[in-house]
């Protein structure tokens, strides 16, 4: 890809790309570890990965660049986002450090480590870049990689395949929830329902309320608030900052809704009569 470009121009072009992408990737990386929301972190990571993909391409590794985009940015990051969504997209990390001295220590160790590496690189005498022209000569980069993978690294490759299968199985096993008691049949369910206090289904959330978010309790026809309408899991985690409520808590909103409903109830006859 880059072989055709003259050395000097190639240098300039490459450094331009490098500097831009370096700044972007470092910035994104910092952003990733500093934002409070996991979703933002994932997006920042995507940015880093894209930058790296381009840098791979610049480094005469087109195959890896594509793999990076497809596997990492495509598959792995999607997986991340998926899990983030399951766990709760709105949850944010608290910024208060709980382990004493962890941040300071992390900073010192991190910076010390980086300094060590820099010093090492500074002292290292790197040979002149050889370029992959010869290596990619015989059928291109993909062919070159394939040749190595299926000859020299074939054993490692096979092991990797085993690893992947195992990982897939492992993920399935882990994600699978063990059923502790037999699945209730419809008959059992209906019997239980008849025996229970409430035969009818639970009221859906948001019914008659001014807001239809799942954590908004429904208003019953008589204007009272029904806590049954909200799933207990969500009720426990109710944070209350729905933006369209303008800072009011769901309870307040619900009460306002209840007033409105009551007002409506006071005049239903007229309305009906008018209509009739």
């Amino acid at each position, binding site marked *: 890809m880059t072989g055709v470009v003259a050395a000097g121009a190639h240098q300039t072009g490459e450094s331009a790309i490098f500097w831009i992408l370096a700044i972007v990737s470092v910035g994104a990386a910092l952003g990733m570890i500093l934002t409070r929301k996991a979703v933002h972190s994932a997006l920042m990571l995507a940015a880093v990965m894209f930058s790296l993909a381009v840098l791979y391409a610049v480094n005469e590794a087109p195959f890896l660049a594509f793999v990076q985009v497809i596997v990492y940015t495509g598959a792995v990051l999607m997986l991340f986002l998926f899990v983030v969504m399951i766990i709760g997209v709105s949850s944010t990390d608290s910024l208060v450090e709980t*382990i004493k001295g*962890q941040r300071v220590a992390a900073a010192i*160790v991190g910076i010390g*480590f980086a300094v*060590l*590496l820099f010093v*090492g690189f500074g002292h290292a005498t790197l040979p002149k870049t050889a370029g992959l022209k010869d290596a990619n000569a015989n059928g291109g980069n993909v062919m070159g990689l394939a040749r190595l993978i299926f000859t020299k690294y074939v054993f490692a490759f096979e092991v990797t395949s085993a690893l992947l299968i195992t990982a897939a199985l492992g993920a399935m096993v882990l994600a699978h929830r063990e059923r502790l008691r037999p699945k209730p049949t419809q008959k059992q369910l209906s019997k239980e329902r008849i025996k229970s206090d409430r035969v009818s289904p639970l009221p859906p959330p948001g019914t008659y309320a001014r807001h239809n978010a799942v954590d908004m309790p429904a208003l019953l026809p008589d204007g009272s608030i029904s806590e049954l309408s909200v799933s207990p899991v969500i009720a426990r985690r109710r944070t209350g900052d729905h933006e369209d409520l303008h800072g009011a808590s769901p309870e307040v909103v619900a009460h306002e809704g209840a007033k409105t409903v009551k007002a409506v109830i006071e005049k239903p006859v007229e309305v009906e009569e008018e209509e009739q």
Partner: protein
Amino acid sequence: MTTMNAVLAAGGPELHPQAAEGVQSVAWLLIALPLAGAAILLLSGRRTNKWGHLLGTAMSLGAFVVGLLAFFQMLGQDAEGRSRLVHLFPFISAGSLKVDMNLLVDPLSISFVLLITGVGSLIHIYSIGYMSHDPDRRRFFAYLNLFVAAMLLLVLADNYVGLYIGWEGVGLASYLLIGFWQYKPSAATAAKKAFIVNRVGDFGLSVAIMVMFATFGSLSYQDVFGQASQASQGTITAIGLLLLLGACGKSAQLPLQSWLLDAMEGPTPVSALIHAATMVTAGVYLIVRSHAIFELSPDAQLLVTIVGVATLLAGAIIGCAKDDIKKALAGSTMSQIGYMVLAAGLGRPGYVFAIAHLIAHGFFKAGMFLGAGSVMHAMNDDVNMRKYGGLRKVMPITFATFGLGYLAIIGFPGLSGWWTKDGIIDAAFEKGGTSGQILGWLALIGAGITAYYMSRLMFMTFFGEPRWDEDVHPHESPKVMTVPLILLAIGSVAGGAFLILGDRFAKFLAPVVGEPEAAHKLVTPYTAIVFALMVVGVGLAYVQYLRRPVPRTAPAGNPAVTFARKDLYGDALNESLLMRPGQWLTRLTVYFDNRGVDGLVNGLAAFIGGTSGRVRRVQTGFVRSYALSMFVGAALVVGALFLVRI
């Protein structure tokens, strides 16, 4: 050549015993018979309860018969051939240490054999009556037989190891017999005390044996005495002093005398046999047997005489103050053995008198102890003389035999004690020099005190008004007890004269201890003094205990009397110097071991445990802490790599 020199140096006793023949070649029977008796009686259990005492007595008598036969055979041999060796079996051999189990039959050992088996058999017979009501009579006879066997081994062994085995064997028998009524705590304690104090003496004997082996490379009498003159003076003196320590333990000489008085807790026949006639005289035997060593070391000899004199006075003083008839006799025993030790320390003229006095003492003291046993039997086992009195009428035989023994011990002219004791006193004076004079006069004073305390005992027991408890009805003992008394009394009367007259015994013993320089003079200037002192002693006792009534409870005495009653504070001294510090040391050591040594170990364990407990806290459970340490580790590894590279 060297042996010849040794022979000359030692004064010519026979050093090359010939192999034994005839009865003497089965001298092992002497030991085997009573040993078999003991084994049968101990192992057979209750089955032999009925006739066990008869078997024991028979075994003892059998040994006596063998001893007599051997003795008569010896009389038929000429003087040079009277030491005979009986080879039994090799005992220990390792490298240069070779000890054979051999027996030496010579005049000295045969004298002891006859005394032990003779007096021993009489006491066996006496015990049949004395112990007739005891449920454990069989065991008693087993122990007696065991004692006889061990004592015979002691005197018959031809080397110091055999002697040592017998030495400890009699110690064991003494332990068992003192503690025969072990359910009495006092008896059990006395037994233990006797054994332990004896062990202190045995310590000396053991070290002496070690020194001998290191010096002479052998432990048989023949080799040791043969080479004795070649050893350095220091070594010889050391051996002598160590042997003396051993003798002190066994013969209850100062400073190891304290056990003998307590040993009276044992049955009275035991006191008669072991603690009067035979075992306690083993120390005298040891010194006389080892005369070749002592003669080479005047220092050791001097110490022997000092110990002897000190003990004879101490024993006599204790004897004056005791109201317990057996303890008074025990004090007397100490005192009389003091005489023998003194004699043994005096060198050649003394040996004969030491052994002669030993034999005479064996008779009269055993007789008196048995007599005391007879009295106790009559008095419901009460030993307090203040509750006796006037017994001569109800117990005529006991009184007569006891009285003869009494006359013998105080040195009434013509009786055994007079011959032998006067001989010792004369020998002390003959030693010459200041030390001879001092020893002689002290021995004289001792004779006077002897007369006093024995008369006191005699008067309190047999004369005066009866002071008996109400329920006591004294009676004469049965024949099985009185016949031995009579026989022993005959020995008390005639033994001394038989031995001393015409230097008969001196000539008999000459092959072993050497010929005395001059024939013994029967009457010396000191004879009169001894007699005078004796009369004074008896008179004093007469005034105190016969003219005046004897109070039933002991009056509070002056400090001197208290001093004597408390055994010259010997026990108190032992207690404060040895027992109490020992107990403290023990407690301290146990504390040190538990807290110090073990504490150190457990402390180390606790330290490791504690440290782990603290280090454990590093495992906070926070993954990020672990990650941090991993990161630090990685940084360190990288840093180390650079350090190596750069």
